[in-house]
């Protein structure tokens, strides 16, 4: 009796392992395949049947992509937009996060609910009217316009994340600094800010990735000065297949790397504890 229960437990665990591994493969295999494609020469990409293993590794396809006329300028645009986005959203959002973390005040709940409800508003409905407005403001087709909108999209998350970062920084430390003669602002800059820095950096990276990945708003708000994903999207149908594969790989890698570096931080912010 006992023994059969034990063996059914073992069986259950084995089954759980199997399913866990299968799901991991389901996530990893497509990433593997696009990597193989990006490192295959164009004639292999056009060929059929393709080998699922990297038979001939070559940089030809990736170089073909990188050397295409628009790629480097729009890559540079993407970086500028993403950096601008994270500066704006931290500058505007971090003070609010700090206020939510440190203070109890009338209106706090309404503010939080308003923040959360912004998630219900699709980017489509922000982009189109803003494009019309930006034409009037002479901001249309500028990187600032894209960054302003990306920052609006990132802001609610930035505020909630920075508030949980500042909750993690004990307020007693700030109070101690004030007892030792710092004023309010000095106490924040000298004590709370350095302690919050890793968390703020993680939040900034998250914002960077959001902006780096965003296609719709970036496409609507620009014509000439496009970010890389926007440019790729517009030209997708006219792009040769190896070009698409290399491009997909190219926008994938930085996002994966950034997320890898901040993964532990993100999990703790989302309330996931690892063993």
């Amino acid at each position: 009796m006992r023994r059969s229960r034990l063996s059914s437990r073992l069986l259950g665990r084995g089954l759980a392992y199997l399913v866990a591994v299968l799901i991991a493969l389901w996530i990893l295999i497509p990433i593997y395949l696009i990597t193989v494609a990006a490192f295959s020469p164009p004639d292999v990409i056009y060929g059929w049947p393709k080998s699922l293993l990297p038979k001939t590794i070559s940089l030809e396809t990736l170089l073909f992509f990188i050397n295409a006329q628009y790629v480097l300028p729009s890559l540079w645009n993407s970086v500028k937009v993403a950096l601008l986005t994270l500066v704006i959203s931290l500058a505007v959002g971090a003070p609010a996060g700090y206020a939510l973390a440190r203070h109890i005040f009338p209106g706090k709940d309404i503010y939080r609910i308003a923040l959360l409800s912004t998630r219900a508003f699709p980017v489509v409905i922000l982009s189109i009217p803003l494009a019309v407005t930006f034409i009037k403001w002479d901001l249309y087709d500028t990187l600032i316009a894209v960054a302003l909108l990306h920052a609006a999209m990132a802001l609610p998350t930035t505020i909630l994340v920075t508030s949980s970062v500042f909750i993690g920084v004990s307020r007693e430390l700030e109070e101690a600094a004030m007892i030792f003669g710092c004023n309010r602002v000095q106490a924040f800059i000298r004590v709370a800010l350095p302690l919050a820095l890793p968390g703020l950096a993680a939040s900034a990276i998250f914002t960077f990735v959001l902006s780096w990945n965003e296609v719709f708003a970036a496409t609507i708000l620009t014509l000439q000065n496009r970010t890389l994903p926007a440019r790729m999207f517009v030209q997708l149908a006219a792009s040769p297949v190896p070009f698409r594969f290399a491009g997909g790989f190219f926008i994938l890698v930085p996002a994966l790397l950034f997320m890898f570096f901040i993964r532990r931080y993100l999990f703790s912010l989302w309330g996931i504890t690892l063993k």
Partner: protein
Amino acid sequence: MRLKRFNLEPYVLLLPSTLYLLLFFAWPMFKAFQLAFQTDDGLLTTAYLERMFSDAMFLAALGSTVKLIIAIVPLQFLLALVMALLIMERLRGSDMFVYIYSIPLAISDLAAGIIWFSIFTERGYLNSFLHNLGILDKPFLFLNYQTNWPFVAIVLAEVWRATSIVFVILVAGLQSIPRDYIEAAEVFGAGWFARVWRVILPLLRPSIQTALILRTILAVQVFAVVVAIAGRGTTVLANEAYRWYSEYRNPHLAATYAMFILLISLSSAFIYLRTLRVKEEMVL
């Protein structure tokens, strides 16, 4: 006791973000409404609305958007639930599984679309794989718009890319359920299914609600994945908004589509809030 002085600091700190959100969230919303219901001369009109409803692509776009939501959201929920429950089994290496399962959070919809295009395209990896197995001798045209395969490819790409966010929300929710509850059920003889069905799922309701609302709202705006995989063969609402703005240069119609997308988002959120109503005492 001394009356506490009114503290201005939080309001000063909240001011920039409030202004920013008013300027770049509330105001565009108002402008979208204006664009959709007002002519350039400032007259109120339902002409754009009627034009959208009578547009040849409208029903197709609405149909495929709704079909995608119906196919994607339940699949994602089930898969994410399985993934989250597996993590709770505390298998060896479960940290690594958490990391792998959350990788797609970093993947853009365009990249995901391209990746799944590389799998489903005529000379793609799926055809090659089936050939290597000896099932196919020549490539099968999966992305032929007259078949259901482009739809299947889009669903798979979206499930692949966007299940992680549901997973993350469910794991966080599961970890906040006290283990005693689950162990108590086990002591009283509840099997695995009974534990999941009677203890875990009811306690998980707030997280489930959040996850479903978020995912449905994101699925209503599905865009780059569809275009990257199916090209012009399949259209969705966001794609129509994009086309009206970028190709036909008609911001009014584009804004009308955007309003329509917003309406679907809000009403689906409302339906979830109603049907999965979270009673106060259930919030742990």
